[in-house]
């Protein structure tokens, strides 16, 4: 035993300390990821492309089958407006219509667009900003005039339009935008 103790020198202690530090560096982030599965979900969603919240997440009765569009098909669905999107670095879009069951029919057309860079998403939102749009309380990066709501989060751009007459439109817009913003993450 005395012989073994004699062989343990300060350099060994230093090596052990280095090993412990390396282990901590590897394990700490892994532990953090394990503790927050929403980060994983967000990363998976981001990799899938632009997304719209589920109808359940926004309290809608239904969501029409979402259409997916790319650079070659965007013009089929928004005609000549597609050129401005492409110039801003459009990558892909998802579009659908939310239907709410609130007595009177209430429907909201929703478009989630992804751009190559955040400044492309911001430029498109600025180009389509309604004249009387105001920030939407509680929804970071969202503006609305009550009929149209625009929001940007990173490379993604959300555009919502109320397509039914009557009350409840602004509230529905804010609800969808809040759910979308939450799914986008910080």
């Amino acid at each position, binding site marked *: 035993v005395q012989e073994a103790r004699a062989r343990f020198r300060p350099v060994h202690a230093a090596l052990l300390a280095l090993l412990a530090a390396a282990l901590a560096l590897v394990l700490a982030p892994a532990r953090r990821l394990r503790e927050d599965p929403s980060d994983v979900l967000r990363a998976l969603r981001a990799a899938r492309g632009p997304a719209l919240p589920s109808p359940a997440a926004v309290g809608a009765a239904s969501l029409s089958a979402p259409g997916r569009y790319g650079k070659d098909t965007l*013009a*089929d669905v928004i*005609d*000549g407006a597609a050129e401005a999107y492409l110039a801003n670095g459009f990558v892909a879009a998802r579009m659908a*219509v939310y239907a709410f069951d609130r007595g009177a029919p209430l429907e909201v*057309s929703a478009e989630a667009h992804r751009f190559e860079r955040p400044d492309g998403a911001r430029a498109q939102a600025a180009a*389509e900003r309604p*004249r009387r749009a105001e920030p939407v309380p509680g929804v970071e990066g969202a503006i609305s005039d009550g009929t149209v709501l625009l929001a940007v989060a990173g490379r993604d751009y959300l555009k919502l339009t109320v*397509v039914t*007459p009557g009350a409840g439109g602004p509230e529905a817009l804010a609800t969808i935008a809040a759910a979308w913003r939450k799914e986008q993450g910080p």
Partner: protein
Amino acid sequence: MSGGDARIGRREAVVRLSQAALAGAAVAGGGAFFAGRSVARADAPAIPDWRVPVTGAAARTVAARGEDPEKNVQRVLAALGGMEAFVRRGDVVLLKPNVGWDRLPEQAANTDPRVLATLVRACRQAGAKEILVADISCNDAQRCFTRSGIRRAAEEAGARVLDARELRTVSVAIPGAAAGLEVIEPLLRATRVVNVPVAKHHGLSRATLGMKNWFGVLGKGRARLHQDIDRSIAELAAVFRPTLTVVDATRVLLANGPQGGSLDDVRAVGAICAGVDPVLCDAWGAGALDLRPSQLGFIGEAERRGLGRSDVSLVRELGKA
């Protein structure tokens, strides 16, 4: 020829391999070049010319203003000599509104349903055997025709409404950038065609009016016409020669077109222009968008091709009712 050594030398092998590679590249390149290109069939029918001669003292292009779109349509038709001047008993009339968008009438992205219904009734009174209303929408066809109010208004007035789900497209002989694109089949059996666009902003061509409205009769692949939009619009105007053009400026979308959405982008103009000169009708429509005809490239293109005139002083203004 000697029956001895049939082997080829290294040099000849290289030459032959190079030739084979060149031939292969030519075939592959040709395939890639022509892939996806539509070629008009030699036996494809031509688009009919639906124009009718204008006789008598009736005006050729007229505009009316007022809050009631039905009255505006009735006034312009009366000044043009009535729908009877254009539609005969037994005609199959196709009305081509803009129903491209899943939007409410108040959002002004589609032709106003009241304007269309008034035209349907006028055609019926003129003795049309069949009145068709057709358009290939950009958004979901069912939603567009329902939300816009077009289906209900047209059917109640006596028309048969055909949206993209019910329309078959057929090959036709079209020159220019649209060559190879198909058109909706009812166009070929219509004996009269009335173009009923809404006047509104368009992100690419600045405005969409009558001549741009022909995009809606084209099948898959029409987006390629955006590459040179002004020339393409003028080319379409040279192919599709309507009996009458009726520009709806009841509500005008001034920004964020063609789909729009915000009510702040809409101005209640309360006007209708109708006539037999599609270029002049579009020139008048430019004014509804606070634009001069010279600011719209497709109007100049069409005028240079002799398809009409852009001098809006030629439009007979009936004033406000």
